[in-house]
């Protein structure tokens, strides 16, 4: 897929091209030479013969600006190439060799960078003589430290990547690794910086010229032209305006192109990139009764309009959840399980379209605006996410972060909040909670951090706790501790838990009910023990048989689900799973199966499995012994 550069960048690139072309072809362009005096009446304004007017000596300003571009762009290009030529090899060497080489190069570089650049340039040019060569060399050399720094940083970030390690394992020689693996990746940031460097040098050269320390008259340069026109500001402003505007546009264009190139450095693309907000037309929902339950989700849908089509991330999900129960949502990445939670919480990008209803104790949350939602989130709905580090602010202490919701939502005094925070931290099994208040997130282990985020989520005694892969980033022994903790807290606080997980054995052990998602839809739902013991939907069955179990014999062949999950923007007709399903028949390709009417254990399949028992026995032992 081609990335969009945007109209402004094309305009900027066009301007750069125009100035460059004019400078190259100046001798062939139909205007007077830059030094031809009295080509027209002196100090006359723009006219057909002289589009930019003439200066005090009657010279054509357009011609002088175009010839001036030769010096400005020539110095820019030369200086950037010089800086790149010297800086890039040094930067690559420092970034790839590391250790002593790096230390020496960077020490020298830091000293060089500490020089006041423009003063240095002025001194050298004043001393060595103001001509094109000297200006180019001085500006080029001054750019070297920045080049070294940039190239070293880019090299470092790629030298650490596993593909470089892989190349070394293959036996590739260093030179070839630099050439084949690292250089192509460093080239993009370098190109981007070259444009920004051009802008810097053009301005620097302009400044020198303005002070009369660049190429000498009569050769025109942009800075020199501005300096000359300065005295005529009152009588003939066009003389100073023309070079100023051209220089301004050129510098702006270089910066624009450079910035845009840098934004493109990231090669990977996010598949789900919402581009524009469609008319906020809520998707229609069929009428339904509002039940007497803690959480009721009715036909929830979240769609994104992308250049590839409408991505149906969540497509008609319904469930209910009571206090003291744990509902697990399982599925593979891209099945919509995390998006479902975010839809329930209303934490979606502004470009999504949401449909359906979410009732919390009978209140329709989908009717709430952001301001009304704020007191609900945190107070009535708590959240715990996969990576505790992203949920915690790295520069604030654990104490302030745990106390914040207490003070904001519950309006506790500092003393009350502190006492409550200590109690919360103790309740999630953190040893020495008083000392913990003064510590920072980076001082804790992953398991401890996750306990802190759980304490924060529980601080306002929420009715429902949403835990999105809460233990995926943790070690297995820590994972068991955290899950046991969640289970205990659920009972103590009489709340409901929504647990999102890709790990079926975790779900089997800790959940009461389970929802299996595939391609944004619920394909099976029911009591956890029953769904795992007697899956009806073939997808659930294959997921269970694809996961290795400790009780399987060594070298046991796992069931392989062929193919890949479907593209959510182009779902196949019929059942979304039919292409990967060994039991699919003609009907599966034509008609999408609805979720069956069975309220106890519904499934979406035309040809459901009979519900084998023998193979899944082990799974259910977990669910039965959930007291662990």
């Amino acid at each position, binding site marked *: 897929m081609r990335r969009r550069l945007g109209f402004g960048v094309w305009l900027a690139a066009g301007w750069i091209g125009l100035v460059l072309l004019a400078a190259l072809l100046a001798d062939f362009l139909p205007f007077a030479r830059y030094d031809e005096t009295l080509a027209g009446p002196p100090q006359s304004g723009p006219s057909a013969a002289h589009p930019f007017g003439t200066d005090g000596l009657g010279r054509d300003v357009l011609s002088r600006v175009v010839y001036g571009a030769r010096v400005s762009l020539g110095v820019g290009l030369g200086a950037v190439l010089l800086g790149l030529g010297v800086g890039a090899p040094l930067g690559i060497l420092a970034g790839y060799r590391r250790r002593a080489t790096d230390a020496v190069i960077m020490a020298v570089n830091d000293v060089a960078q500490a020089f006041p650049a423009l003063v240095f340039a002025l001194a050298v040019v004043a001393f060595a003589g103001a001509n094109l060569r000297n200006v180019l060399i001085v500006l080029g050399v001054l750019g070297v430290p920045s080049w070294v720094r940039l190239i070293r940083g880019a090299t470092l970030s790629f030298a650490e990547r596993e593909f470089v390690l892989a190349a070394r394992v293959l036996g590739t020689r260093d030179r070839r690794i630099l050439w084949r693996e690292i250089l192509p990746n460093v080239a993009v940031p370098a190109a981007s910086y070259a444009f920004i460097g051009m802008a810097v040098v053009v301005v620097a050269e302009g400044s020198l010229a303005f002070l009369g320390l660049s190429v000498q008259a009569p050769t025109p340069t942009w800075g020199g032209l501005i300096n000359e026109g300065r005295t005529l500001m009152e009588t003939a402003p066009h003389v100073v305006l023309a070079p100023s505007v051209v220089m301004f546009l050129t510098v702006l264009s270089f910066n624009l192109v450079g910035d845009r190139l840098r934004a493109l450095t990231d090669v990977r693309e996010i598949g789900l990139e919402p581009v524009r907000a469609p008319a906020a037309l809520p998707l229609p929902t069929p009428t339904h009764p509002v039940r007497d339950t803690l959480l009721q989700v009715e036909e929830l849908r979240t769609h994104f309009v992308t250049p590839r089509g409408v991505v149906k991330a969540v497509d008609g999900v319904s469930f209910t959840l009571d206090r003291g129960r744990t509902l697990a949502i399982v599925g593979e990445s891209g099945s919509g399980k995390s998006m479902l939670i975010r839809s329930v919480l209303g934490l979606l990008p502004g470009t999504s379209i949401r449909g359906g209803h979410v009732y919390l104790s009978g209140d329709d949350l989908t009717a709430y605006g952001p301001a009304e939602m704020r007191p609900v989130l945190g107070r009535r709905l708590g959240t715990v996410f996969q990576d505790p580090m992203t949920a915690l602010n790295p520069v604030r202490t654990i104490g302030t972060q745990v106390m914040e919701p207490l003070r904001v939502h519950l309006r506790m005094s500092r003393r009350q909040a502190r006492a409550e925070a200590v109690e919360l931290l103790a309740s999630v099994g953190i040893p020495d909670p008083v000392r913990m208040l003064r510590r920072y997130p980076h001082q804790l282990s992953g398991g401890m951090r996750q306990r802190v985020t759980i304490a924060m989520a529980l601080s306002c005694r929420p009715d429902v706790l949403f835990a999105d892969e809460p233990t995926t980033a943790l070690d297995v022994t820590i994972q068991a501790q955290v899950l*046991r903790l969640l289970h205990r807290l659920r009972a103590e606080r009489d709340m409901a838990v929504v647990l999102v997980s890709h790990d079926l054995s975790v779900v089997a052990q800790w959940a009461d009910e389970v929802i299996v998602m595939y391609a944004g839809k619920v394909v099976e739902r029911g009591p956890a023990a029953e769904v795992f013991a007697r899956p009806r939907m073939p997808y659930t069955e294959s997921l269970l048989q694809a*996961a290795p179990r*400790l009780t399987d*014999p*060594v*070298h046991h062949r796992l069931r392989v689900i062929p193919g890949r999950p479907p593209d959510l923007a182009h779902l196949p007709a019929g059942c979304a799973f039919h292409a990967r399903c060994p039991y699919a028949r003609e009907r599966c390709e034509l008609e999408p199966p609805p979720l069956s009417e069975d309220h106890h254990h519904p499934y979406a399949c035309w040809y459901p499995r009979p519900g084998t028992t023998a193979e899944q026995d082990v799974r259910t032992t977990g669910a039965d012994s959930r007291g662990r």
Partner: protein
Amino acid sequence: MAGSGTAHLRPDDEVLLRVEDLVVEFPAGRGRTVRAVSGVSFDLARGETLGIVGESGCGKSSAARALVQLPPPRSGSVRLDGLELTALRGEALRRTRRRLQMIFQDPISSLNPRRRVRDIVGEGPRVWQLPGDRVDEVLEAVGLDPATAAERRPHEFSGGQCQRISIARALILDPEVVICDEPVSALDVSVQAQILGLLEDLKDRYRLTLVFIAHDLAVVKNVSDRILVMYLGKVCELAPSADLISRPAHPYTRALIASIPGGGGLDLPPADTLISGEPPSPVDPPSGCRFRTRCPRAAPRCATEEPHIRQVGDDHWLACHFPVKE
């Protein structure tokens, strides 16, 4: 757990890869040292799959990288078919690289985003100036269609497909040993099953010897002939896979199994009675047995004396003063 000692190593003529007293250390700043691997020994017979299992920080990945000498270990010996790799430098070391290949955890980061699949997979033969073009053959062997895949770049593939490309890149050199460092932990269950099955097929087809490193005991058991359990840079237990899971003798192995929901069919006590607290820092590991700070069976002796590896059953090895006897 201490696990020093080499009693469990087999005679040289029976093994393809022999690792003895491997020590890997990194500077941790302020003059301190991370002891990532502290005297680990193991060996692999030709055609065998050795699983290495342990939690983050146990040194399993550091050990893997020390095997390919990237970076070389601080001390210890790595012998491939009698050839001492740690003694080699520069060109001599480079020439052994073909025989030892590696597959990494992050399928995306393992592939250069700016190169085409054909160049990525064909890099090995080009470096070694091997005759003939086997790219299509290995791509087919890993289940990719060369006609559509070879000219594309990595970002056009899913995680599982990227891992297939990494495997193809390693296989094209006909290595003797392939080290798989968490090759499936970034993948979904269904894709994980595909890659595990693929590794088993390729192992037969190309007569590979595998070191399979993972944190998931069930995954390791699925592919390994023998399993080595590591904790904080030391060896805890080494046994044939089925034996290790059905008769775990080391307290840490038992805690690992009990932490897995379902408990592996064993009637183990709850995990929280088998292990407590958090792993200590590898910068300042406990004296004696490194597991003693979390071990319910720890006694004074564990703090003073490091247990040595000894045999407790048929090819079942253990480093613990007070193992669990059934």
